[in-house]
């Protein structure tokens, strides 16, 4: 799949943002005054910024409101509802923290749950796709939620929680890589099943349908730089999980958290790039390219 920057930015930023908002909503961090304004502002900025970034890849963003209509069947629609619900429900909590209103925290707990649901919905947009076997697995939502929780915890300075979450994330990532590598073949997809002509013999592409480019090949078939996959996987796991976890052994202060979050974000971006770049869509079978 084509690793579009807008989608990478969207999913990394909103994952972190909703994770952080969840921690703020639950009251595990209890800032007040301008600090609260700044922290809640950061959470909202990441989450909303991510969502806005996601609209950049829409062909007709002016109709985006229509995306709320199909919550019964569409994970993208559910994501829209969950994200808006989370952002709306958490607004009074943020206001309360900022202005010291001391409103009850129950709404914040619901908001925090909605943040996690939002990220789960985001993950399910990918995980539901049988056409992309690497994504079509429980490790996809688990990994997205792992990023969400670990990132949120890290940004909230919950060092112990963050440390465990980052370790779990590392395990999830490595499991996801290993398991994902086998899945395409395990599902039985092949040029033979895609075309049905395997009954005659081993098929291969003779001539592509068009020498000119097309949307399918640009969007679904990405083979450039896969040869660097092993290195990139190590970088992703190291930067997203292991380095930040190690940093947490240092005295926790704003600087260590900032550095850890920076590593984590870069690692998350690399992981997300790999998430797309490594994902093979079955339509590639028709082109003999995956």
């Amino acid at each position, binding site marked *: 799949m084509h690793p579009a920057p807008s989608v990478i930015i969207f999913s990394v930023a909103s994952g972190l943002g909703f994770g952080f908002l969840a921690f703020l909503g639950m009251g595990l961090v209890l800032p007040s005054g301008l600090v609260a304004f700044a922290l809640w502002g950061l959470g909202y900025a990441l989450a909303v910024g991510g969502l806005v970034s996601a609209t950049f890849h829409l062909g007709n963003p002016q109709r985006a409101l229509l995306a709320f209509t199909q919550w019964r*069947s569409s994970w993208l629609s559910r994501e829209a509802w969950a994200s808006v619900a989370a952002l709306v429900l958490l607004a009074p909590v943020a206001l309360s923290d900022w202005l010291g209103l001391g409103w009850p925290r129950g709404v914040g707990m619901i908001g925090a749950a909605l943040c996690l649901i939002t990220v789960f919905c985001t993950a399910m947009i990918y995980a539901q796709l049988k056409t992309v076997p690497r994504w079509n697995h429980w490790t996809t939502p688990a990994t997205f939620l792992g990023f969400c929780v670990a990132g949120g915890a890290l940004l909230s300075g919950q060092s112990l929680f963050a440390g465990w979450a980052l370790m779990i994330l590392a395990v999830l990532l490595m499991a996801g890589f290993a398991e994902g590598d086998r899945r395409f073949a395990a599902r039985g997809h092949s040029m033979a099943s895609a075309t049905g002509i395997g009954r005659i013999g081993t098929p291969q592409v*003779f001539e592509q*349908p*068009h*020498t*000119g480019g097309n949307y399918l090949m640009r969007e679904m078939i990405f083979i450039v730089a896969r040869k660097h996959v092993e290195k990139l996987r190590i970088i992703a796991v190291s930067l997203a999980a292991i380095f930040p976890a190690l940093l947490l052994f240092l005295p926790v202060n704003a600087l260590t958290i900032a550095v850890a979050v920076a590593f984590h974000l870069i690692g998350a971006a690399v992981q997300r790039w790999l998430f797309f770049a490594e994902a093979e869509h079955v339509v590639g079978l028709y082109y003999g390219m995956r």
Partner: protein
Amino acid sequence: MTHHQPHLDTSPPVSDEIRRTTCYMCACRCGINVHLKSGKVSYIEGNRAHPVNKGVLCAKGASGIKQITAPSRLRSPLKRVGPRGSGAFEKISWDEALALAVAWMKPLQDTAPEKLAFFTGRDQSQSLTSFWAQGFGTPNYAAHGGFCSVNMAAAGIYTIGGAFWEFGQPDWDHTRLFVLFGVAEDHDSNPIKIGIGKLKGRGAKVIGVNPIRTGYNAVADDWYGITPGTDGLLILSLIHCLLEAGKIDLPYLAQWTNAPCLVGPDGLLLRGEDGKLLVVDTATGQPAAFDVPGVQPDLGAVWQGSRTVFQHLAKRYLAPDHAPEAVADRVGITAPRIRALAAELAHAAFDQTITIDQSWTDFRGTRHATMVGRPVSFHAMRGISAHSNGFQTARALHLLQIILGTVETPGGYHFKPPYPKPFDAHPVPHIMPRGSGPLTGPHLGYPRGPEHLALLPDGSPARIDKAFSWENPLSAHGLMHMVIANAHAGDPYRIDTLFLYMANMAWNSSMNTAATMDMLTAKDGAGEYVIPRIIYSDAYASEMVAYADLILPDTTYMERHDCISMLDRPISEPDAAGDAIRWPVTEPDRDVRGFQSVLIDLGARLALPGFVDTEGAPKFANYADYITRHERRAGVGPLMGWRGDGTATGRGAPNPDQLDRYIANGGFFQAHVPDAARYFKPWNRAYQDWAVEMGFYDAPQPYLFSIWSEPMRRFHAAAEGQGDRQPPEALRARLKQAMDPLPIWYPPFGEVAAAAYPVHALTQRPMAMYHSWGSQNAWLRQIHGRNPLYLPTKIWAKHGFAAGDWARVTSPNGEIVVPVEHMAALNPHTVWTWNAIGKRKGAWGLDQNAPEATKGFLLNHLISELLPEQGDGLRWSNSDPVTGQAAWFDLRVRIERVDAQMQSLPAFGPLPDLGEPS
């Protein structure tokens, strides 16, 4: 969950108007429905009522809408201002352009008309263009058949009185086995596809004999991956097997062919005092004219030492050198498979005979209660004919059809009116002594013997292309591919003005493209161009445009009148004669004129006979007016339908409403063959009478198929030293081999010189592209925007090729560097690519970095128009020695692996954009 769906209007208006005309995206001439919305062409589909395509349409036809908006369209007349080849032009008016053309042509017309050479490429108006050239008085006229498929056409005419495509086709509704030889996708494309679809629909068998298994060969039930240039060897071996097993149609041979005729001591057939061919009547044992009522020709007769043609043919092809075991290695097909193919032919022809319950009467007066057919049919086109043994190979294929008894019988091959038409019903070539005014007949024809060669009194060729000379005596379509080389060399003489229509000679239509560009720009010692003037007409900014001095911009096919005429190449079907028109379904938005109208204007300005009235005033306003009012013979004009008062067919006075009647009928006319005349046409009285009624000929002309070709034998005899018109010594041996009166096979020329070049290299045309024309089409160029060279597994593995590699391909004539890909379904000694995808940078309105120009390539650079010198100091043209057909497919190469490149080689400097400003 609930289901909800929006309201949808499923009956939207389709268009404001449908105008029905004829396609020109290839040579097929399908009927198209052109939809218009708000005066603009909005959609093109096939015309269901049309006899050629019956509603279907190919990829090119449906993309015609992009042809009328292509940026490559020329916009106004242009006069060269920079050096030739630079593409520097100034726009001029039509008055200036026509005045300039007349200023160049008029002095030639008056003093040396041969110094005007007029050759046309994709010409579907040859009856007009040749008529014009006859009037001008130049012997130098032809269309592009010489580099296309003249071998197939001429071999067919000389053998059975017709060939494939426009001459005839398989009886698709009845055939049970269809055998396709060689590359054939490029002519008659929709009809063949429709035919293959019919066969597939009823599970009939399709066999492909082709080095490359794409297209029609991909759906063939059996594929014979033959080595190029050996088709004739295979066919004669099939004939060997059929003879050996006695699986031949003896009654057919006896009644309808010259098999029972007697070969006299001079190699010509014995004739009676009335000039009629003689056969020995089985009943009497005495000679009798072939056509006397009740005669039963004896195939085994010997009369005064003269044996029948049948005995000559049997003796020749039964010889062990034609046995499958003797030819298998050369053709690349095992002997058992050759025998199996022969068995399949025999099985279909003799075990699956079909009978149509229709009585008919033959020319001898014998009534036949039914029509019995042998349901085996064949098709072949350029694949077998573009070799230097192509004429004889095509003859061999016709012989195979004859001995199986399939020609003009139900389920076999089926002529399209006005064919059948034997060679002796065609004109002979006409040339006039120089400077004496108009020719007395058409330039092109079918020589019966050396007396019809187009030679000057000193024995040198009269024509610039050396057509109808000893180098290629039966060059019925001329040799357009030799015109530039000969004019440049001054051999046989220099010319002044080269006038070309729709022929991309500076690119894909020439062998040796780079050298051709040099010839077009070459200057003599005085600094003048060796070819002093070039006038070119095309609708688009092809590579050739830059090499002309004067450009006469043509319209697109939807902006003009045309006629697809019975005088030329009509759209008949076996069961109906038919012709068609084009008409302006949309108006040009630029200063262009239909070439035919321009030619008529020039004809009037030059006062050519037929183009001015008795007062010297222009006779025709434009091409539409000519189509309506021109009469070639009394009552016979370009179009056969709705003549006279609108009720006459074939013969009748001009009808001013004729074009309107065609338009109302969808752009075509058909006259159906009567039921009793549908088969056995050359010998069927009902057909012969109908053909006379239609004006195809003026008296019935039944004939026998020429298994033994007397015109060939006359040249053969000359090569043996007989007669007073003798070939040059250097050509004697070659003529003796090539002009054999019975079909033979010999290795393609250049085989010896090519010993260091072990690989055959071919091109074929993709079904979604036609020549160069598709590349300027926004839709089609997305399908074929570049072309790799396909290598067979053996070569791929031997050189260690990998995906993404390129290759250096070398021939005796040069080298190219091109991308390669692997293909297993390919003869192991053959490489190939798609034809004419490669473009010169800047041509055709494309970006200079278009993939057509960076990755695309031509094989033409590797092919010379001349064969290597063979020790006698002479270089013969790279053509068939009988017809002069360009031997494109004789190419031999050597392959080396090279790393991936950014640019295919050779690359040439970019041409300026001569099309529509974007």
